[in-house]
């Protein structure tokens, strides 16, 4: 009996936890399926008739397809750029025993703590001066301020676990340094690269302050900015905001569901080991 009570208590707690975590998203989902007529009153809590017009509206009456494309290009390019140079730096630090390893890692760590508001005004002036405003590059390079330290940190820790004897053995067997890296080290680093890529992509996909400042039109505007600035003719278009929110949340839900172990290992890497 006692065990039964404890067990049901546990599952009750679990339900409350899930309600707290998923509740706002579910409410947003319900909102996205309500017609405008029903949205202006409460109750009813649930719609009597499910409408998909908000979902079609964000694509037909707003340039949401282009916005998603912008976000996708910016997040992908940031990921590829930062992972490529982060992998090289991580290799240099862990395998080739770069001389100022500690100093460099200390700089990287402190850069990752920079508040974005502190760098936004100089970056704005540079971007304006070289005419990059409202282009993808105006986001990809500034995003390196948070994406690159993260990549270097995770990849350096990951590559440090690969025995450097493997590299030495490949060198003795007649590989050039580059061959040894490409044939032995990089393939072994692939899981770390993948973990890191998921995190960097999510962070770049969600970034707001730089995107708000450095973009001006649909040419380069990303999803968070578009949702923040969703214009309504007379009132706030809650239905369309809800639909857009669900559309951009869906891929993240899928990613979180299938890659949860990697995401958690990436988030805890470095912090557990200190």
């Amino acid at each position, binding site marked *: 009996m006692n065990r039964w009570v404890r067990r049901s208590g546990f599952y009750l707690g679990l339900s409350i936890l899930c309600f707290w975590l998923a509740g706002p998203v579910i409410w947003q989902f319900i909102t996205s399926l309500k017609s405008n007529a029903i949205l202006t009153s409460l109750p009813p809590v649930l719609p009597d008739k499910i409408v998909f017009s908000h979902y079609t509206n964000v694509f037909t009456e707003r340039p949401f397809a282009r916005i998603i494309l912008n976000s996708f290009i910016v997040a992908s390019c940031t990921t590829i750029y930062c992972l490529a140079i982060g992998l090289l730096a991580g*290799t240099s630090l862990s395998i080739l025993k770069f001389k100022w390893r500690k100093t*460099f890692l200390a700089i990287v760590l402190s850069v990752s703590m920079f*508040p*974005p508001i*502190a760098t936004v005004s100089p970056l704005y002036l540079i971007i304006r001066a070289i005419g990059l405003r409202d282009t993808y590059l105006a986001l990809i390079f500034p995003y*390196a301020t948070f994406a690159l330290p993260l990549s270097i940190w995770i990849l350096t820790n990951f590559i440090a676990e690969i025995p450097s004897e493997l590299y030495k053995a490949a060198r003795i067997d007649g590989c050039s340094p580059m061959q040894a890296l490409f044939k032995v080290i990089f393939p072994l680093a692939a899981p770390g690269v993948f973990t890191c890529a998921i995190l960097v992509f999510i962070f770049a996909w969600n970034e707001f302050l730089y995107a*708000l400042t450095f973009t001006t039109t649909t040419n380069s505007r990303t999803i968070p900015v578009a949702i923040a600035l969703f214009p309504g003719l007379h009132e706030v278009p809650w239905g369309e905001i809800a639909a857009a929110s669900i559309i951009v949340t869906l891929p993240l839900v899928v990613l979180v569901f299938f890659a*949860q172990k990697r995401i958690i290992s990436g988030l805890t890497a470095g912090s557990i080991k200190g």
Partner: protein
Amino acid sequence: MEKRLGYWLIAPAAITILLVAIYPIISVYILSLTERLLSLGIDRFIWLQNYQKLLTDPRFWNAFTNTCIFTGVSVSLELLLGLAIALFINRPFSLRGIIRAAVLLPWAIPTVVSAKMWAWIFNTDLGILNYALQSFGIISSNLNWLGEPTLALGSAIIVDVWKTTPFAALLLLAGLQIIPDDLYKAASVDGASNWQKFWHITLPHLKPIMLIVLLFRTLDAFRIFDSIYILTGGGPANSTETLSIYAYKILFQTLDFGYGSTIAVSVFIFVVLISLIYIFVLRKQGSLLNE
């Protein structure tokens, strides 16, 4: 040969960091020493005048107080709730994978989207929160969660707690999982109660990771921008205006790059101070562990 290669491989990362992080952070200090109004084309060096203005600017101190309250309250709540969640789900059960994914959900959602979700929940006339509270008879008339100076900062804290507690919970869960099981077994043999086990085994082992969670969360909360920009824009009557929001407004609405940069520099200085305090405490912890 290896040494040379080492330099070549690190060069792209080093140059990028130099250009997008080191140069701007030096540059913002220089900007803070100028009077620079973009709309009027004024650009002149004024030494420390901006800092003099900053110290006597009531709006700056209001933003500073708001930022401190926001950071203190939300980070403590996140640590306590995160610890509770971590302890709660640190056991084998069948739905564990799904629960872990659910915990990650608020973390993965863009802050802007989560703020919009909550703005809709908090809506005075159409929000589900007021409707639910009225239905249960807890309030008699609708509350203006985001428009009332006494409520707005609290509402912003709730949104932040919802969004970032998962991060704390997952790090603490990882910390719990590396505590050796033998310790608990030995304590059970010695007849320790659950509370004693928590107090004498769990907490001391969790202390380093708790400090790291606190460091990450404090730095993140102190520069809060996204959710407040969406929820209230700093209003009503500047009651939710944080340092980042104030700096942003002076920079990009007033186009006063000199004074705006000065406020931004102040955020940077506070962040450095917070990091130094935590690093000092962590060092002390580390040396205690070594002894």
